[in-house]
């Protein structure tokens, strides 16, 4: 009796430690893979070569070298800055991103924690990084950073709503908020929800791009206007945190979209007993497909203006999402 208890106890801590280690490895790894993909893909799109020398071949070690470089750099905190807030901001941004990994199902049973309110948790926790961004903008004692932070806050309010509303359709169809449950519902239905929820998927992706502050919605950073906005004053590993958070966030947002709309770790035609092993790879494939689209947009589009973004959110996406919910709900009842 005692032995089993201790083994459970041990198991809990061991598994927690294992999970923490896994996330701690995954975030930088994903950051590097996606960062490298972005470098190489953008180079391909722009008739360039991209990283070439680092590591001997294709410049594969470029981002490792970059990471080491960031740690070597001086950690500059502006004299006028609000130091505690300034220091806390990048950590908060990264934590908000890392916490999202908890609810992503990589395969049947392969999930850090299958919360009953999984998707609700994901949407709530993803807003945390925007608080970090606002803190960074406010504490930097830089007018450009401040404008960037405020733009980020405005963007969050405008895009959190369509993001949530876009998800509701899926939740209605699946009848559960658990991420694992949504995937299982899609397996049971036999088709990924994007087929019926294409409007929701489109809105979700647009809103996710805005959440990620990537072009065409990168007004909070806006290099040519705000000189990198809220990250202007950051250097060294604090900057690296923002950098990692951006790519890790890209991964998690893509993973959530893949789970909700594209069937997650499931692919039609793949037998269920294989999913245990193939699941993570199927999910990764879908994630990279979506991430590729994001990178593609980034290097194709210019940036919107802040007021154009707001009107897009409030005048188009929110009404569209509401209509989508209404239609989904009616169909659910009728059929």
């Amino acid at each position, binding site marked *: 009796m005692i032995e089993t208890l201790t083994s459970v106890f041990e198991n809990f801590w061991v598994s927690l430690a294992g999970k923490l280690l896994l996330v701690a490895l995954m975030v930088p790894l994903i950051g590097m893979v996606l960062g490298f993909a972005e470098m190489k893909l953008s180079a391909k799109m722009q008739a360039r070569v991209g990283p070439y020398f680092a590591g001997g071949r294709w410049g594969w070690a470029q981002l490792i070298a970059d990471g080491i470089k960031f740690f070597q750099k001086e950690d500059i905190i502006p004299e006028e800055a609000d130091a505690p807030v300034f220091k806390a901001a990048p950590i908060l941004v990264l934590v908000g991103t890392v916490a999202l990994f908890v609810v992503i199902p990589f395969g049947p049973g392969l999930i850090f924690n299958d919360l009953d309110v999984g998707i609700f948790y994901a949407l709530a926790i993803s807003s945390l990084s925007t608080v970090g961004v606002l803190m960074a903008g406010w504490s930097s004692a830089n007018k450009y950073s401040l*404008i960037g932070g405020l733009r980020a806050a405005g963007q969050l309010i405008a895009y959190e709503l369509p993001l949530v509303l876009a998800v509701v359709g899926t939740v209605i169809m699946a009848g559960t908020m658990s991420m694992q449950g949504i995937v299982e519902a899609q397996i049971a239905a036999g088709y990924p929800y994007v087929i019926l929820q294409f409007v929701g998927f489109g809105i979700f992706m647009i809103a996710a791009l805005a959440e990620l502050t990537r072009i065409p919605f990168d007004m909070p950073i806006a290099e040519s206007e705000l000189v990198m906005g809220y990250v202007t004053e950051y250097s060294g590993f604090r900057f690296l945190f923002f950098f990692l958070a951006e790519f890790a966030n890209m991964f998690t947002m893509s993973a959530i979209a893949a789970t909700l709309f594209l069937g997650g770790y499931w692919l039609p035609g793949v037998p269920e007993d294989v999913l245990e092993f193939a699941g993570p790879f199927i999910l990764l494939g879908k994630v990279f497909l979506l991430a590729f689209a994001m990178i593609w947009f980034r290097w*194709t589009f210019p940036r919107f203006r802040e*007021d154009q973004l707001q009107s897009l959110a409030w005048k188009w996406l929110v009404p569209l999402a509401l209509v989508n919910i209404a239609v989904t709900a009616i169909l659910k009842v009728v059929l």
Partner: protein
Amino acid sequence: MVIDQDAMRHLSEAQVSVELATEDMTLNIGPQHPSTHGVLRLVARVDGERAYDVKPVIGYMHRGYEKLSEVRTYPQITALINRIDWVSGYANEVPFIVAAEKLMELEVPQRAQYIRLILTEMARISSHLVFMASYPLELGAATPLFFALRERERVLDLLEGVTGGRFHPNFNRIGGVKPNAGAGPTTRKTPQDLPAGFLNDTRDAMDKVLEVCDEIEDLVAGNEIILARTKGIGILPPEVAAAYGVSGPNLRASGVAFDLRKVENYLPYEDFDFSVVTGENGDCWDRWWVRLEEIRESAKIIQQAIDGMPPSGTLQAKVPKIIKVPAGETYVRAENPKGEMGYYLVSDGGLGPYRLKIRSASFSNISILPWILEGILVPDIIAIMGSLDFVLGDVDR
């Protein structure tokens, strides 16, 4: 408890007025900023995202060329004025050289004039391609930059082949163009002419430029976000533009069909068939469009000039070894890529000018900024500033 109604009313009023008044922020854009093309500084009062009382501060790059010209000899001055608008260095030389030739009453050989014309148009193409590269970048699209710069390299290579310099050719001589113009080893026996194959290479390059213009048009003009960011933004009415001395593509974008290549005779433009491109609304979009079309027109002019190139011969009129320009004064202006570039040359018959007034295009073009940026959103400041296409060397001289 007795409530003092008067005091309450007073309090509520006070609160209303407190809520209405928000503090404005003074925003310094530049002198070090990615979108100010160098060291322009704007001091703006911003209320939220809206800017008021925008004051450009210039002079960070003032090099005093007008004073320096007074202590230089005429052949030395071309090396200075190359650096005024460095994006189209070659085009700066021409009006000055023509002014000096006018005072000396020299007849420049036709072939030399054609070479000047081709190189000037190449400078225009390279300058406009820089605009094609940088303007989408300022709006956030990075990719057109590489396509435009790739073509510009093609043009600059040719320019370098003839003149030996990519940015600062210093190629014109009073009375013609540089002897031994790019003719390989500079022995006395080599013919003074263009490098072998230059004309054919240029014709091919112009075909490529025309192709890439279509590519850029697809990439940029087909983009809804670019249109949303530029159409109806920064409208410049023609009468305001004229009063401020805004010239060149910026003026033509406002619908004024005025091109100094058509009305002045500093180079033999009357031999060629080209049209003056004008915009309709005078907004940022039209300024972009006019420049794209001007690249096409320039490419056509160059191809025509190659077809009509006079046969090989001397490239230099007879001038004395020590050049002294007879006393007199004249103003020669030219249609440079950025607009009207002119030199008021006052000579006293000496080795150098007594006074050289340099009228540069960008200086007048950006003097419109306080007018055009009043009450504009901060992102639009960047969009408008970029669309005026200025170079700080051309502003500060």
